[in-house]
């Protein structure tokens, strides 16, 4: 076995031998893990990664000396430079806590920092989530509908069925695909093809937000902002819960701020702060983002006050981002 694994890691197995090894691994979790970990190790060994490893490879003593020198240099810089002279335009809001500490951190759940890994299948772009669909076929008390997980459906979701304006029954979703689903008739005996089904507003909103996040995380910030605007428009017209609207407004505001559109962001954040309960995560996130906005406009006193308010509303991990924002504006005055 050892010999075979050695040949596997060296890429010397024939396809037939590799298949036999794969089959054995299905009966042995430890072998499956060993093969997978070796595969990761092999995949990691690229010239670029090795160069990166060599760049950061210092002897422990050298690391200590370099670290000390860097710390001393940093202290010297802080003493010499009045950070108030740093022009506001050098600040650029970011989403990641691990980024340069001199940059203000924006907060919005769902949006990943730039460069975060994104995994999706190879299919092309998808359609916009729909809130209403119809039954395309029926058999044995099961209805196939042209809405799916893309539209916010999940297994177990219940959908009202309409014929024109008349409610004729309900379906419970049993199988969900990306853009279609199958449901069992749980109420109503005369449900038929072409009857309409409607998705709950909260589920539709969730689907729209998923699309916003997916587009942004894929690097399409313009598309994300466009989808978020569409979601806001829908949410405001559908009169969804204030808290859900606050989430939408904050998300769109962050997208605007990352694109340098600060004026549009301010109004949205103001509405989000007004709509969200003060104990809610989105309130704290929106307050933090208002603080970032004040900081970007050069008003550090206002930013400090807002960050302070935001901090008092936070209890979770994101508190660290606000603490860092607060420390930065305090340190720069």
């Amino acid at each position, binding site marked *: 076995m050892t010999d075979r694994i050695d040949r*596997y890691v060296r890429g010397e197995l024939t396809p037939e031998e590799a298949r036999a090894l794969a089959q054995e691994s299905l009966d042995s979790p430890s072998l*499956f893990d060993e093969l997978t970990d070796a595969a*990761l*190790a092999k995949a990691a060994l690229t010239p670029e990664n090795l160069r990166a490893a060599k760049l950061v490879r210092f002897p422990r003593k050298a690391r200590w000396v370099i670290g000390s020198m860097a710390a001393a240099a940093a202290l010297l810089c802080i003493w010499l430079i009045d950070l108030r002279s740093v022009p506001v335009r050098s600040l650029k809001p970011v989403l990641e806590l691990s980024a340069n500490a001199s940059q203000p951190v924006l907060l919005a759940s*769902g949006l990943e920092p730039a460069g975060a890994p994104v*995994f999706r299948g190879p299919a092309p772009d998808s359609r916009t989530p729909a809130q209403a669909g119809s039954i395309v076929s029926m*058999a*044995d008390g099961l209805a196939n509908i042209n809405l799916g997980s893309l539209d916010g459906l999940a297994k177990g979701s219940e959908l009202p069925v309409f014929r024109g304006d008349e409610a004729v029954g309900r379906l419970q979703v049993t199988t969900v*695909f990306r853009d279609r689903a199958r449901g069992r008739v749980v109420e109503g005996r005369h449900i038929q093809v072409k009857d309409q089904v409607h998705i709950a507003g909260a589920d539709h909103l969730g689907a729209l937000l998923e*699309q916003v996040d997916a587009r942004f995380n894929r690097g399409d910030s313009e598309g994300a902002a466009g989808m978020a605007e569409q979601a806001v428009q829908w949410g405001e017209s559908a009169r969804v819960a204030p808290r859900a609207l606050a989430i939408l407004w904050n998300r769109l505001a962050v997208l605007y701020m990352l694109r340098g559109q600060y004026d549009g962001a301010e109004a949205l954040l103001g509405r989000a702060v007004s709509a969200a309960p003060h104990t809610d995560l989105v309130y704290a996130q929106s307050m933090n983002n208002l603080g970032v906005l004040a900081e970007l406009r050069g008003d550090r006193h206002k930013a400090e006050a807002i960050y302070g308010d935001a901090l008092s509303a936070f209890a979770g991990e994101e508190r660290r981002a606000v603490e860092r924002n607060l420390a930065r504006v305090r340190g720069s005055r």
Partner: protein
Amino acid sequence: MSPQAGPPLAGERLPGPPARVAAYEYRRLLTSLASRARWLGSRDPESAAQETLKRSLESPAAQPAVDYYFSQEPPDGMAPEWPLDRLLAWLHAVLHYVVREERSRVGYQREVPLGESRPDPADPAPGPLDRLIGEELRAIVVECFPKLEREQRQVLSMRVEGLKYGEIAARLGVNENTVATWISRGIRELAQRVRRRRGGTAQ
């Protein structure tokens, strides 16, 4: 899907005998993936494994490799383009991402109470494997590679540069068998460190 579940939707696989056999074969793979998902910190490892398999089977590049290496019946067609190690790295990458999605979805559901709704993430993007594990792989090398023995680092570096066993052997003054041994030991040692490293972060 049971045979009584109504007519197949467009593009849906029919549940004939071959599909039932395939389902059995994939259950073994699902078990392995679920075990790994649990180790990666998933709260719902079975679902994560199913989602990983589903996404892999939707990939035109991964699907033939899954069929070839993990089907119980001897494969009819030619060997797939992907070698086994590439498939396993892919499966890990997808699983890792699915577990990450699961965690972020938990946070999302906390943010917006959508009842039982768990909409699928939308919007595909190309080159998923490279984009997904690029940073993780770099971190693996940066953190684990320097801890290998000097000979292992040397031969692996030369191999990555594209040198053949004979050329490496000539440079180091050893025979080719020794080079092959150092390479396989180096990768396996690196793999063990990868596991220990992930073990520290997976919980």
